[in-house]
């Protein structure tokens, strides 16, 4: 088990007064709250900050921690509590952390864990068999490729459920489900699988599994609701004369008619070629006129002729006042 430096987690020192600790905690809790922060490890940091504050806000626990801290970590950063260590504060959870007490680190558990708490028992208490309780809901996230979301897919979902063992203690278990994801799901959409969460206790009904879908970034398409946007490079002659161009779409290739006199930045809409659903989205193609970097002598001559022919065209007319 690793030693946890609670002072470092809150960015305070051993001599910091309680007000400073509280202030720093509040600030960091806002910063790392998983609903606010987009940092990849925000959730872990938020837990560390919460755990650190749980100890340092309480003068008794703080004093005990200071003692432990002097006893210190081994040179490799690992930690074992002193032999015969016993905390005076029988930790029963409290304040904001009550619901998450089971998620504190092993380090916390080894120092402040009360006698009635065994490792890996969220909530800490054993439930007797005559207690009837609905199983917990489980909330999971599922990342899909755009192609999978478009056509629907079968996915294996793994998640933790809590169930009572033979002694009535709550234990965690990894559950695996094969789920058929319907076509047309998009980022932030939810699926509910009734009764697939944690099993009920003492004959209670099972909880549900809720899955939130997240779309992985796609190299070609940007997703906006159900619409897909892509950039299509075309040549100057295709833009000037119009053309029929094969364009990649999800699950197929589409012939796109570029109108005569098209320009860079012009948007063409392929109706109904976006993500499917009650109101199917469109595929929006943004044209980008692209020129080669080298031109043959003949091409240069032709460009010269073109320049003379179209000398009235001034693309910078909006820049001069």
């Amino acid at each position, binding site marked *: 088990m690793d030693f946890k430096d609670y002072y470092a987690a809150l960015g305070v020192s051993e001599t910091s007064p309680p007000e400073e600790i509280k202030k720093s905690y509040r600030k960091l809790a806002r910063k790392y709250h998983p609903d606010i922060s987009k940092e990849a490890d925000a959730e872990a940091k938020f837990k560390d900050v919460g755990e650190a504050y749980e100890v340092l806000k309480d003068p008794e626990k703080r004093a005990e921690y200071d003692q432990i801290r002097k006893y210190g970590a081994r040179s490799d950063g690992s930690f074992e509590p002193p032999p015969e260590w016993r905390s005076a504060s029988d930790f029963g959870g409290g304040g904001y952390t009550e619901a998450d007490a089971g998620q504190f680190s092993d380090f916390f558990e080894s120092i402040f864990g009360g006698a009635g708490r065994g490792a890996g028992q969220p909530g800490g208490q054993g439930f007797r068999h005559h207690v009837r309780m609905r199983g917990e809901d489980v909330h999971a996230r599922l990342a899909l490729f755009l192609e999978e979301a478009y056509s629907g897919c079968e996915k294996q979902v793994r998640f933790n459920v809590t169930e009572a063992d033979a002694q009535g203690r709550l234990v965690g278990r990894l559950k695996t489900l*094969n789920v058929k994801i319907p076509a047309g799901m998009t980022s932030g959409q939810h699926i509910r699988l009734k009764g697939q969460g944690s099993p009920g206790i003492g004959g209670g009904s099972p909880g549900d599994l809720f899955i939130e879908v997240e779309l992985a970034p796609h190299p070609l398409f*940007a997703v906006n609701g159900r619409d897909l946007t892509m950039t299509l490079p075309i040549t100057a002659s295709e833009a000037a004369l119009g053309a029929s161009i094969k364009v990649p779409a999800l699950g197929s290739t589409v012939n796109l008619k570029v109108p005569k006199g098209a320009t860079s930045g012009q948007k063409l809409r392929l109706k109904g070629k976006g993500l499917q659903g009650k109101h199917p989205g469109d595929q929006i193609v943004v044209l980008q006129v692209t020129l080669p970097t080298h031109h043959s002598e003949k091409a240069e001559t032709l460009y010269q002729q073109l320049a003379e022919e179209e000398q009235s065209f001034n693309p910078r007319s909006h820049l001069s006042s």
Partner: protein
Amino acid sequence: MKKARSILEVDTTGQTTFTLREFCEHGEVHAEFVIKLVNYGVINPIDAGDAHRWSFDLPALARLRKAQRLQRDLRINLPGLAMSLELLDDVTELRREVERLNHMLAQLTRE
């Protein structure tokens, strides 16, 4: 351990609704909290009107849980909570917009 071999089909999305009672059960909150959130416009029931006729959809449940976490962890009062959630919605939308624009820009500049 029972091995999950069968494939679960999801019933048509967007069809799931909860009564106020079910909503409170899944959100692990009291009805009073939900009523307050509705009154502050944080959560909208599908059918407005009497509380006992309210029904809620899946996005509302996600929002309720978020509201509950923010209130519990940061001790925000209701007006603050309502404003925080609105700002967080804006931030989410802006982040998505930035992502989309960066995606387009990368294609235009071929980076």
